């Protein structure tokens, strides 16, 4: 790969393409685009070393709006394309953009496998709990009972949690962010980028047309403080407008509970401290839902593990050093041969 000199100072706009952005006015995707562009500028990666890969859906238009290399592929299969890109050239900085329909319905299989293999890339799943581009059908993350064009009497499907799916797939990095929370999101994306392996980030994204307010209970300015728990490694799990609530482990039932600080003598020392290397804890945190619990955002889980693409190329290097450089003539003449004379 070419190794261009790192530009002195990249700005978010250096990562914007000349294409007109065509999401609906007010779509959460705009905010994510801005957050991602800012993150890339902060990372300082040269745009030519970055590839954005997507499937199909509103979120999957994302690559067209980036000044990097981009591949808008087919529905649900972006993880497979991205894996192929990393197998061909592990040096490329690959970002995969998908949605709840693309990544968890038609592409659920591929998302499962890219996570378990731990292919080194960032996977941003824009979860708006709806099919936008096909005009408003319910998705695998839609709340049960949602009325949509295909479920006029309410959806019967039980929804799945993307973060729990990722943990179940043995993902090595699982995080959450909210489209509008621009101060929080770049930090999560930076962490995802720094992680070697498949970094899964679920981003709650408001679909203003078909599912407006799906996350209103925790994602808006006036609800975030009470509705969200912002995770920080090693920090006690405190939330609330007045920072007076916390999460405590009920040891007898291995479950979580919300407690009020200062009541019944409860102090910070009684609260759970976040340990992002603890997969069981990550699962408990991912399960937390409004209104009984705050929604956990930030890095739920992060554990170092070898990246698949790196390991693949280590095997190739090992084979090359053990068997010597490739020689087609030698290959064709290996094994039993015989000579027919004149």
């Amino acid at each position, binding site marked *: *790969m*070419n190794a*261009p000199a790192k530009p002195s100072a990249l700005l978010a706009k250096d990562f914007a*393409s000349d*294409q007109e952005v065509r999401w609906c006015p007010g779509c959460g995707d705009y905010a994510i685009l801005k957050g991602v562009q800012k993150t890339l500028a902060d990372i300082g990666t*040269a745009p*030519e070393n970055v*590839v*954005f*890969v*997507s499937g*199909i859906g509103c979120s999957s238009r994302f*690559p*067209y709006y980036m*000044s*990097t*290399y*981009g*591949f*808008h*592929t*087919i529905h649900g*299969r972006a*993880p*497979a*394309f*991205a*894996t*192929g*890109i990393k*197998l*061909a*050239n592990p*040096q*490329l900085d690959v970002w995969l953009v998908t949605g709840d329909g693309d990544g968890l319905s038609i592409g659920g*299989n*591929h998302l*499962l*496998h890219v996570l378990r293999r731990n292919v080194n890339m960032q996977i941003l799943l824009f979860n708006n709990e709806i099919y936008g581009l096909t005009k408003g059908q319910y998705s695998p993350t839609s709340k049960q009972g949602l009325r949509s064009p295909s479920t006029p009497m309410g959806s019967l499907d039980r929804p799945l949690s993307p973060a729990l799916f990722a943990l179940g797939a043995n993902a090595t990095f699982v995080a959450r962010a909210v489209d509008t929370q621009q101060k929080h999101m770049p930090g999560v994306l930076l962490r995802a980028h720094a992680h070697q392996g498949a970094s899964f980030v679920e981003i709650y994204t408001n679909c203003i047309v078909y599912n407006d307010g799906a996350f209103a209970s925790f994602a808006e300015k006036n609800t975030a403080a009470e509705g969200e728990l912002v995770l920080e490694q090693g920090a006690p799990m405190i939330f609330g407008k007045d920072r007076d609530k916390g999460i405590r482990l009920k040891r007898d039932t291995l479950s979580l509970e919300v407690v009020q600080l200062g009541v019944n003598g409860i102090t910070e020392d009684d609260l759970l401290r976040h340990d992002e290397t603890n997969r069981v804890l990550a699962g408990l945190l991912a399960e937390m839902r409004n209104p009984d619990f705050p929604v956990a955002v930030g890095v739920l889980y992060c554990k170092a593990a070898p990246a698949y693409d790196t390991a*693949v190329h280590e095997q*190739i290097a*090992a*084979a*090359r050093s*053990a*068997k010597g*450089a*490739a020689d*087609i*003539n030698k*290959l*064709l*003449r290996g*094994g*039993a*041969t*015989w*000579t*027919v*004379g004149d």
Partner: protein
Amino acid sequence: MVTSTAIQLEPTGTPREEVESVVVRFAGDSGDGMQLTGSQFTLATALAGNDLATFPDFPAEIRAPIGTTFGVSAFQINFGARKIATAGDAPDVLVAMNPAALKVNLVDVKAGGTVIIDTGTFSDRNLKKAGFGSNPLEDGSLDGYQVVTIDISKLTMEAVKAYGLSNKEALRSKNMWTLGLIYWLYDRDRETTTNWLRGKFAKRPDIADANIAALDAGHIYGETAELPGGMHGYSVLQAEITPGLYRTITGAEALAWGLAAGAKLANLRMVLASYPITPASTLLHILAGMKQFDIVTFQAEDEIAAVCAAIGASFAGSLGVTSSSGPGIALKGEAIGLAIGVELPLIVVNSQRAGPSTGLPTKTEQSDLYQAVFGRNADAPLVVLAASSSANCFDIGIEAVRLATKYMTPVMVLSDGYMGNASEPWLIPDFDSYAPFPVAFADHEQIGAEGYLPYVRDEKTLARPWARPGTPGLQHRIGGIERADGSGNISYDAENHQRMTNLRAAKINGIANDIPLQGVEQGNESGKLAVVGWGSTYGPISRAVGNMRDLDHDVSHIHLRHIWPLPRNLGDLLAGFDQVLVPEMNNGQLVTLLRAQYLVAAEPLNKVNGQPFKIVEIEAAIQSRLDREFGEAK
């Protein structure tokens, strides 16, 4: 020539009978090692200087119940002192290791042929399992054959007694005992098999020794025993073979090596992404063992992921290859359409098998021609190549890489289960004699006033440039939505879609100017009858046409390796014949394509029973066409 094997006297003084060619079929239970036996006999026969062709035929079940007819595995070899085109119509010799093998295979044996039977397996229980109502050794059903009954099981046990193996292990040497006998029968050298056994069982020398003892015992039995049925030894003279260095090669090996060679000539890393499927998995296995050639192999989670990963690899500047069989290719269809739209190189190998759906996974067929040429949504042209023999797969592999990279297009390579597994002698080419075709990736010189335009085409090939991510200044975005001519940006413009559709078609059609003119394999370039084939029907068509020409019939053999685009002279060539006959192992696919393209009155000859065409079947079809009034009148 290597040492002559002409008439020699046996120790007993019986002379060997000289024969020009022989067809032998080894048949037994799946666990009897018939495929190994066959491949060892193939190698020994090649080393003895005969030309040969083989046909492995094995069940889909991994371990079918022992002794059942559906667990029978067979390996047929045709070898001789003349050019051998097919595995042979009917066996001269059948080796039946159990009643089920006899039951399944006797029907194919030539009238008066030799049947060698292991009587040690002919228990009442096994006879019943094979579905025999009475014992064929006693009820006269073998009248008309030369029957050689030997208790191979018992003789094998005796031969390996000294090695202290369990009964089960000892009996597994039965195939080597049998091979030893057949080696004696046709005067083959045992050394290669002995060496192979030593290598294969390097960690179990007792097993190696036992197998070698069995091999020797079978051979000695032939030399010394008074053989039942008056059986005596034969010699098969060496064939007139082009001088040079040879090996045996299967289609799967030849294709794997051809693709590796092509990637080398293109100066590309190859990424093969595949999902296991019979009979295509062998290609994955072979390439997985070739990492030193900078080949990345990826066993994907499904067929769709496999093709998508291959396309992703091509996007990133490697040669993406995916491999499957018909049902898997069906799953890949949408992604192949994307590769056609974004115009990236991609090689899709289809080892065809009988269908539809799961069909008969281990039985050969060539019924995916429609799928290859037409089997995608919308107007989605690509290149289709068809290998005509195991060895031909090597050159087809190289050509697939050349066309895919030069024209930035998917190339579908059609092989089949028969070709993939069958081995044939191969005059090993000198790789240095192949002209390299290194890929020229786009660089900063392609950056114009409007920046880098990924859909500005080469005027001659109509191919777009290939920009490798990581290259500064060439960042671009492509995808499945129609791309604007030039910039590649999303375009919903209807006129642009018309133009791009035309360009995609013109690019593929133009490849007709970059492939050889269609030649005639045998016969004249015009005349009464052209027999037009493709794929693995090459052998039987070639022999049948040759035989008919020897009888002074006016018939020619034309064999297509370029299925799409078709060679630019094919229409004119076919127009020079009164009749065109198209034998295919499908229900009539190439014949439809030829009729549609050229308005030629081509006629089908079809067969889909899982077996290759017999030479006599094609001869009969040729005869019936030539017997027609109008054919002779012109």
